[in-house]
């Protein structure tokens, strides 16, 4: 089974001026996946590195888009490959290796972010109580990008994930379905709801900016 390139045009568009995604696509197109996996399982260090290089960019980008923090994204990416090498023997090959890796990426990232969120909420609760901030003037009106960020961050997790994967990282609905183990139609529906919610939240900003 050869590795199939999917959504190369979309991915290059998602990358914009960046070429990391394109380089990764080019590397992957020359790799025979089952052979690579076999060599990795045989303990070939060069094969391990080749597997890593073929996928690290997309894994890191997805982790970063979700986490918004480089240190977290690095940690999650590390964890993905640690797990991948540990469990590669169990990879059955019924999906593409990238699908399997991105599934691990989503799991690791979402679990990690939930822990971070819980801890930050607790710390904030205590800090707010201890510091007793005065109820002074409200914070400045958020600017456009901040509002966009808040709107996307405010999406339900399953909608934000599909939005990020499809709109920002160029995954097709078929790829998303494979990674999240949902039907293609479900992926489309979640994206549609995410878009509708963002349009509603940002209509005022968008119209002003577009005008």
């Amino acid at each position, binding site marked *: 089974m050869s590795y199939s390139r999917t959504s190369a045009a979309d991915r290059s568009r998602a990358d914009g001026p960046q070429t990391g995604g394109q380089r990764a696509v080019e590397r992957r197109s020359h790799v025979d996946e089952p052979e690579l996996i076999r060599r990795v399982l045989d303990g070939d260090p060069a094969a391990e590195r080749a597997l890593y290089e073929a996928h690290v960019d997309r894994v890191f980008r997805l982790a970063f888009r979700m986490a918004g923090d480089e240190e977290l994204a690095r940690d999650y990416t590390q964890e993905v490959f640690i797990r991948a090498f540990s469990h590669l023997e169990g990879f059955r090959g019924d999906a593409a290796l990238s699908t399997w890796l991105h599934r691990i990426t989503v799991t690791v990232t979402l679990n990690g972010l939930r822990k971070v969120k819980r801890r930050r909420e607790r710390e904030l609760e205590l800090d707010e109580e201890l510091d007793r901030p005065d109820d002074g003037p409200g914070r400045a009106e958020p600017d456009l990008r901040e509002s966009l960020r808040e709107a996307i961050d405010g999406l339900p997790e399953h909608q934000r994930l599909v939005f990020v994967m499809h709109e920002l990282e160029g995954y097709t609905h078929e790829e998303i379905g494979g990674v999240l183990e949902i039907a293609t139609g479900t992926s489309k529906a979640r994206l549609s709801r995410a878009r509708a919610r*963002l349009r509603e939240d940002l209509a005022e900003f968008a119209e002003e900016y577009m005008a």
Partner: protein
Amino acid sequence: MMGSERDGGSDGGVGRWIREEALRSYNRPPETPTEEIWDAVERRRRARRDPGEGAGPGPDRSRGRWTRPFEGGWAGWGLAVAAALVVGLALGRFSAEPGASGPAGATGESAGERASDGDLYRVATDGHLTRAEALLTSLRTGDAPADVDPDLGRWAGELLAETRLYLDSPAAADPGTRALLEDLELVLVQVAVADRAGPGGAGDRERAREAMEERDLLLRLRNATPPVPTTYGS
């Protein structure tokens, strides 16, 4: 083809604007730090294969992950001193323990080589949990504010800072220990808040007691710490 056309629906100008702006600005990834991540992956994999190398699993300490608990600000130097004392005591206790070298000459290893990071963290964590047990016992038995140790809030604050340190350390790698530390953190927050509220903190103190009872925290702390000193690593 991205966007609405591929999905068969019309997204309109606003939707297109949102998508383009998000592409430009929402958590836009930097260049992938390929080599650094690979080095960290290799380090951790080597440590798993050969724990004697000392690289250890867990966060990449060389990037200062250990400094994160210090970013909280208010614990500051006190936290650093507490952490150093805890780890130093654990190291000193282990190395001084008679018989810590285990079966003499069995494998030719020294006590230092056999003492794993995991054992040291366990010793330090046990000490921490024992102190937490003492605080929670004081909380539980103090029915009226006057009965409660007047230093309880400060004590809770110090233990809270240490708990968060342990949560960020390999000590929390064990799921049971992690769950215990997280529940402890929750209760300590409430105790510290109650203290700051002064006389008005009775409600918070009561909530802390309720949280402690709901989670069987005192029982779990007692079960988690060894009743008698043990020789770790043997």
